[in-house]
């Protein structure tokens, strides 16, 4: 079976990527980790909470907010009345699933009986079984989950930010939807969405661990071939312009210190290496702006404007992206003003080449450390496969980045009109 794999060796990383497509059209990636005791498998679907408006058969249809997440929960139900999660656990595997804005992923990790668990993963994800009764029961459970998330100030500050950044993009709405939106769901909606999106050519299987690529190919290859179909067109709201929809949004909760999330709207990267390059560059630019070795960090920290919880990064959504800084501060607006001023200074004066070289070195080390965890690696490969690039390309792309690239990103993106600030204040 090895013959069907395209094998790429990344010598400098000490990693290999086995890539194949099964007869049913499912892309399969295996990233071997000899000696590791627990292996991970992740079956991802390019379907997330933002995919609420789509045209499965040429005609547009709208589904309630929270459908993808609801479907993820219900997919564990099996036709014989059992729950697939339980079967994994009886075999000692830990299993879970997560719904994001763009992707839903089901995964397990196991030290033993990898093959049996992989069969089980493929079986339950491709076996929809929804009834009016089970949907009704789940509406209560998800309603509880929605209420629990409403109590989480970190979740609130982030969701409010999305609402401030975008006027129309469906990421404005919570991944889980609202109690009212999930109440409108029917078992037929779930079947329709499963049929539209849970198709092998809209999915991928990623495996990492001390696992034979042949075993993975054998098991994944047993699924019968499916006729090729073009994926449904999707509508993400055609966001007007490049500016944030609102400057600021604030909510009051029972928190000790104000929490803030600051976002700056970016043009979404094109599919292919540009997507991975964007993420690497955004991380480096933010490190140069406000990372721990940057002058601004020392000032913000020294003046008590941020603490060690301050973090930064970038987020990609379907047809959208933004830079993000998160933290706790008594003066979030002042942090925002200092970030803008420093971005303008770096754009004007350039980023210190010695600092940038160190940051690149640090970024390489950090990404290398990240390769140890098989599940994280599967997640990264799945996310970038949907953007049409292999994750291991990061080392070569990182190497080519320059201080000017980073300064240009800050100059163009971290501007007042593109920025929105979300704050959760103590009541």
């Amino acid at each position, binding site marked *: 079976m090895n013959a069907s794999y395209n094998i790429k060796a990344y010598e400098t990383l000490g990693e290999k990527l086995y890539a194949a497509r099964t007869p049913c059209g499912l892309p399969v990636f295996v990233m071997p980790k000899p000696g590791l005791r627990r292996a991970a498998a992740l079956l991802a679907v390019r379907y997330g909470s933002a995919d609420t408006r789509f045209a499965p058969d040429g005609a547009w249809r709208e589904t309630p907010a929270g459908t993808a997440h609801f479907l993820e929960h219900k997919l564990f139900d099996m036709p014989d009345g059992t729950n697939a999660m339980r079967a994994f656990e009886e075999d000692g595997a*830990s299993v879970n699933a997560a719904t994001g804005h763009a992707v839903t992923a089901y995964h397990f990790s196991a030290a033993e009986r990898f093959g049996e668990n992989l069969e089980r993963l493929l079986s339950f994800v491709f076996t929809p079984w929804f009834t009016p009764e089970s949907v009704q029961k789940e509406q209560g459970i998800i309603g509880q989950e929605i209420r629990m998330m409403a109590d989480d100030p970190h979740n609130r500050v982030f969701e409010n930010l999305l609402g401030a950044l975008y006027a129309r993009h469906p990421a404005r709405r919570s991944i889980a939807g609202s109690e009212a939106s999930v109440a409108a769901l029917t078992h037929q909606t779930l079947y329709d969405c499963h049929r539209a999106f849970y198709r092998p050519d809209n999915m991928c299987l990623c495996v990492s661990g001390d696992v034979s690529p042949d075993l993975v190919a054998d098991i994944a290859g047993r699924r019968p071939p499916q006729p090729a179909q073009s994926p449904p067109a999707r509508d993400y709201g055609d966001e007007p312009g490049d500016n944030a929809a609102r400057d600021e949004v604030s909510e009051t*909760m029972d928190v000790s210190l104000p929490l803030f999330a600051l976002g700056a709207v970016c043009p979404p990267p094109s599919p292919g290496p540009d997507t991975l390059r964007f993420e690497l560059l955004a991380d480096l630019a933010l490190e140069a702006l406000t990372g721990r070795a940057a002058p601004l960090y020392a000032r913000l*920290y020294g003046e008590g404007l941020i603490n060690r919880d301050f973090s930064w990064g970038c987020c990609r959504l379907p047809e959208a992206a933004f830079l993000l800084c998160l933290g706790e501060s008594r003066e979030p607006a002042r942090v925002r003003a200092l970030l803008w001023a420093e971005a303008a200074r770096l754009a004007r004066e350039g980023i210190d080449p010695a600092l940038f070289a160190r940051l690149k070195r640090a970024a390489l080390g950090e990404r290398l450390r990240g390769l*140890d965890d098989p599940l994280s690696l599967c997640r990264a490969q799945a996310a970038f496969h949907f953007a049409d690039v292999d994750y291991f390309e990061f080392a070569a792309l990182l190497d080519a980045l320059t201080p000017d690239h980073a300064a240009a990103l800050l100059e163009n993106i971290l501007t007042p009109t593109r920025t929105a600030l979300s704050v959760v204040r103590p009541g």
Partner: protein
Amino acid sequence: MSTPLLPGVNLTCLPSNAKRSRLSLSLLRPLSRGEASLSAALPHVLCRGTASRPDMTALSARLDELYGAQLEPAVRKKGEVQCVGLLADFVDGAFLPGGPDQLAAAAALLGEALLAPAGGGDGFVPAYVVTERDNLADRIAAAKNDPRAYAEQRLLALMCAGEAYGTDRLGNETSARAVTPDALWAHYRHVLASSRIEAVYVGPRGPEAVTARLREALSGLPRTAPFDDVGTAVRSSAGAIRRFAESMAVSQGKLVLGMRLGVSTPHQDYPAALLAAELFGGGASSKLFSHVRERLRLCYYASAWLEGHKGLLLVSSGVDEGNRRDAEAEILAQWDALGQGDFTETELTAARLSLTDMLRATADRPHRLEDYYLGLSAAGLSFPPDELAERLGSVAPERVAETARGGVWDGVYFLGGEREATL
């Protein structure tokens, strides 16, 4: 695996093929209300700067040169032992261009951070202490930002109020605000000399290489024997259940229960207690999940785990205020059923496999392995996770039930939208 490095300093060396290596130094302190906040502030101040890299910018620049190595303060509570120290996380040179000796560089940086803080040798930089004191107090106050974890923390504080265990690992807001540069310096000099120190390394280098580099890095360490004793008192009895309720503006209530199981890590029934906790509230096949959540729909989540250092069993759940009494009654009833041996061979096997899988996988994760061994060290123990996994395999079902019957519920805590008139 575990060897004396210097007087009162022990080194545990664990082999790993991961790209990430971990090296930690922890001072073991008896957890006490009086010094918890001082000890918690200490590593944060040490991470602000060293004699040769006196501020965060210079220190971060050095870490970036070491391919994004991390130097982080660590304050951990292992039973009634507060483990206070520094953690280094770095890519081993074997995976980097030119094969630099990253271990030597990380050990040197850890040693300097511990022994030669910025400030000239006779005190900390006062501004660093003030910022870290304020951050510590803020962090303690921020606990309520996560209502679920906050409820669990409050139950332990109230239930163990008269014991060392009732002190939080960071102390409280008042003790944090009382930290001063002088008091912290005096505390630092005292604990540096009189504490047992545990060094843990996880990575591809052999014990000789690690020993040599750490001995050099710690050559200036003052040592004043005898070293302060640490340990955890385990209680296995309780009176009537004590009930506590507090209010917070949450839309979903948090119900937390605590039991004195009396079985801690050194106990021969520790594997049976682990199995009982897993059967009770581990995963989707557990009693709490299948009965309290799925069958009766009394809560959104309900899980249980063993706090092995103190021999406590804890249950955490999210419930509607109206279901609070029913949920509590059902949780207690499910535990009683477990004590009566009301579980199947399949359920026991699932619990065993889940724990075994988790223990065996500890070897894959340097940070988990480091934390596992540090926890054992705090109790004066050392055995590999595989050995514990093997012991789980030979526990008879009757032993699990018997261990469950030995537990006594002690505290029930509810965090809800409105304070109840009667507790």
